[in-house]
């Protein structure tokens, strides 16, 4: 017999659902697949739901589940990645994110959009926290240069 989800969990999801869905969109490149990804992440977070945890930890757990679910679903996502990248018109930042490797994309989105810690991301992608910091900074520099070229009409 299943129980009704905790109303606090529903409130937190409604409160942070927008950010989570946009992060999923950055990871997947498509709103529809982002919704699917977020649904999977929420279901996995609900499995590990503990009402004694504070709100920040719950939200952090859902964000980690989102990145982890994306990394788990990579084989299916990669099949349509090229088509999505060409079909969906977007700005220079989104195009730059679409050109990144999935691990690097997850690192940038997790570190600069979801504001996860280096150690949390390192645990998700199984690398050292220093590696996460280094890759994130270098990728951000690359995106900045791409944005400046685009702004100057060179991108």
């Amino acid at each position, binding site marked *: *017999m*299943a*129980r*009704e*989800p*905790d109303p606090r969990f*529903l409130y937190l*999801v*409604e409160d942070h*659902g*927008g950010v*989570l*869905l*946009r992060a999923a*969109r*950055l990871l997947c490149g498509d*709103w529809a697949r982002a*919704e699917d990804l*977020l*649904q999977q992440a*929420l*279901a996995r977070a*609900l*499995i*590990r*739901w*503990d009402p004694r945890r504070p709100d920040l930890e719950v939200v952090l757990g859902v964000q980690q589940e989102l990145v982890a679910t994306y990394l788990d679903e990579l084989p299916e996502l990669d099949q349509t990645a090229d088509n999505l990248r060409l079909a969906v018109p*977007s*700005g*220079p*930042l*989104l195009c730059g*994110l679409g050109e990144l490797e999935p691990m690097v994309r997850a690192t940038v989105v997790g*570190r*600069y*959009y979801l*504001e996860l810690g280096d150690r949390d991301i390192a645990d998700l992608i199984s690398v050292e926290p220093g590696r996460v910091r280094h890759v994130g900074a270098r990728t*951000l520099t690359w*995106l*900045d240069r791409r*944005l*400046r070229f685009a*702004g100057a009409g060179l991108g």
Partner: protein
Amino acid sequence: MHVDDTTFRDLVDAELGDTPPAPADRLEWVVRAARSNGPPDRTGRLPRAGYLALAVTVLSTTLVTGLLVSARIGAGENATRDTGDAGPAVVHDTASPPASHVPATRLGPAVSTSSDRPTRRAVPIHPPVPAEATVRPRTRPTAHRSATTSRPTTARPTTARPTRSPTDHGNPTNPPQSQPPSASPTVTPTHPTTSPTPTPRRTGYIWP
């Protein structure tokens, strides 16, 4: 424009535009999936609650069992002291063999309760004794109790009887401690050979 860790989110949100109102619908899907699968109950909290309930059950059962056993033992002891019937006396006698080696002073109160039956058994054997002698069997219940368990009624006098002399028996002036058991005159004729040999030892031996 410049992208760094502080402006990245704002710039990306600007490129993404308005977020479609999907989370509410997707949340309903999540809730529906949670209702159908019931993940929190099956995976998270129920096992812990189950282990806790099991531990509490085991502890309470052990405690209740211990209380019942202790209460039963206490009831058995009371029944032995109060009623004095044949049932509890058997249990009491089975525990008495080590008591035969214990000095009589340690068994004072317990002996006083169980000394009635051995006294009644010994009365038909012994000849009538004076009033002082009738008290004596109560003062030495350990001997009777040990005799009831192993029933060495004939072997026991072989060690103790020779220490008594026929002259001491039946003398009302002697104190009860120095008096031999009242059965000594009856058993002495059955073992006439043992009486002469312990006579020298009688001088240095004190009956407990």
